[in-house]
């Protein structure tokens, strides 16, 4: 199926070695295309990467993989991606969460990967709302309606929820985890995106491989390379060269030129447009704004030893949940996510993780972080870490006396790993669900195409590769 025999010509050039780019690469290489993945950073993974510091392994991004499925499940996105990429269940080997909680002042809702617990919790804490919750569940769009064609996709999730649930606090509480795990829009959510995240978090649930995100990335890269795919790190794309209304290739930061029949970009919508040399002005206002800092604490004991067994806690310290970029401060710790990778049900033969870890994610302002001079940046990392931890211990046991090591990553770090404008974690609010651009042979995958999260990004790469790069031949 190779369309040109020139030695430096690729059937498909993929920009970005994150989850979506690697997954797309596997599909195309499997069906005999000559594929090259270009990555600007010195490592793979994009938002979902990892690093090693002070002898310890850290994950960027991954708290939990959503869309949990048990071995043998045939439905749902995880089963689909395993089939499409020709993996086996053991290649992911997901351990199920112990249980997570949504904590607001004076009220908490627990949930697991079995929706029945959340239903029981709602019945007890919000008597009178359970029928509304069930009818909301019945009104969810199916994954097959997620190509954007359904009129309801773009409705306000808050509006739809209010048609079913009359208690505003319950609406806020249900939205909190879904926005935290996959909403690029400030304050409200598209109903379609709400449905994707509702299924991913509440109906399917959370899991994690014992070895974290590196295990998934290692499997993706090994498979891609095994199929003859080429992966070039430290190879940022400076320019997509356009001739006669078609992309003909890319120019790398170091000046190297590569030609390709088509280009699949996970760099983001605005970011990809900026690379195209036929476009002079890019509407940067369309880029996403939501970015995070993450405050990581390594502990001298396991979280369960001091009574904390939650996999994830989504907290908010008032009755209204504010989901927007902090405009006048570096961070906003009124709401946050507490995650402990220790609190999964790992197999007996895997044992325990080497350290107890608590990770806290809070909202942050990318521009303010990037404007700090270096000494101030370092000092603020310490200050904002303390603020995030102080905020979180209102919703979990105080762990501060057990901390032996800390690290913080900021929107500046996220920008370095993803190269997305504003360090926007979930990309632009306006998704390009069909993956098309103004050019007939340049396509988008990854966060700005639609699905987010690890499973979502992989499914995005697969579906865009199938739709635009395989079926056209």
């Amino acid at each position, binding site marked *: 199926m190779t369309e040109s025999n020139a030695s430096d010509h690729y059937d498909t050039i993929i920009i970005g070695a994150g989850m979506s780019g690697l997954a797309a690469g596997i599909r195309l290489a499997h*069906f005999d295309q000559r594929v090259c993945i270009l990555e600007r950073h010195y490592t793979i993974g994009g938002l979902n990467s990892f690093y090693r510091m002070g002898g310890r392994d850290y994950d960027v991004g991954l708290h939990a993989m959503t869309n949990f499925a048990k*071995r043998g499940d045939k439905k749902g996105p995880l089963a689909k991606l395993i*089939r*499409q990429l*020709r993996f086996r*269940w053991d290649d992911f080997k997901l351990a199920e969460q112990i249980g997570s909680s949504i904590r607001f002042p004076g009220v908490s809702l627990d949930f697991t990967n079995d929706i029945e617990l959340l239903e029981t919790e709602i019945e007890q804490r919000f008597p009178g709302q359970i029928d509304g919750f069930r009818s909301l569940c019945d009104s969810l769009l199916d994954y097959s309606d997620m190509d954007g064609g359904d009129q309801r996709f773009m409705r306000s999730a808050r509006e739809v929820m209010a048609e079913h649930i009359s208690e505003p606090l319950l609406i806020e509480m249900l939205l909190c985890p879904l926005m935290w795990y996959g909403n690029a829009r400030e304050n409200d959510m598209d109903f379609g995106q709400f449905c994707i995240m509702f299924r991913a978090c509440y109906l399917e649930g959370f899991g994690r491989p014992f070895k974290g995100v590196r295990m998934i990335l290692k499997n993706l890269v090994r498979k891609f390379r095994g199929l003859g795919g080429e992966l070039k790190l430290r190879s940022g794309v400076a320019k997509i060269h356009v001739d006669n209304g078609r992309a003909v290739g890319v120019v790398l930061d170091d000046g190297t030129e590569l030609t390709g029949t088509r280009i699949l970009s996970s760099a983001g919508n605005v970011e990809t447009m900026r690379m195209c040399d036929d476009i002079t002005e890019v509407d940067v206002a369309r880029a996403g704004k939501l970015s995070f800092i993450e405050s990581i604490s390594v502990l001298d004991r396991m979280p369960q030893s001091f009574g904390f067994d939650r996999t994830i806690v989504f907290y908010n310290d008032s009755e209204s949940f504010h989901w927007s970029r902090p405009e006048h401060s570096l961070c906003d710790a009124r709401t946050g996510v507490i995650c402990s990778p220790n609190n999964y049900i790992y197999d007996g033969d895997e044992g325990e993780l080497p350290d107890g870890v608590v990770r806290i994610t809070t909202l942050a302002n990318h521009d303010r972080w990037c404007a700090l001079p270096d000494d101030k940046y370092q000092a603020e990392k310490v200050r904002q870490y303390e603020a995030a931890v102080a905020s979180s211990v209102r919703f979990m046991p105080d762990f501060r006396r057990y901390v032996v090591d800390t690290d913080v990553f900021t929107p500046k770090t996220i920008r370095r790993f993803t190269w997305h404008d504003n360090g926007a974690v979930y990309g632009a609010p306006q998704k390009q669900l069909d993956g098309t651009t103004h050019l007939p042979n340049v396509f988008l995958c990854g966060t700005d195409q639609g699905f987010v999260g690890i499973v979502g990004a992989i499914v995005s790469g*697969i*579906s865009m590769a199938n739709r635009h790069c395989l079926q056209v031949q």
Partner: protein
Amino acid sequence: MTPAEIRDEILDILEDISPDEDLDGLKDDVPFRDQLELDSMDFLDIVMELRKRYRVQIPEEDYGALASMGSTVEYLEPKMRDIVKS
């Protein structure tokens, strides 16, 4: 290829698409969809695997012929008769 060899080849493709699936009890006269819960993406994969492995082209209007093992083998027999099993 004989019909039996074509059947083995389809089994091999299904095994490749879905390695954790138990294919031993697969019934030839029951649609794949009812036994294996294959979706449209998986059907497309069967088509593409046949193209990749044997250069067999299946036009989109013929996809319906791939509903069950029996109908698939029957449909492919004239197309794969002259292919020597590798």
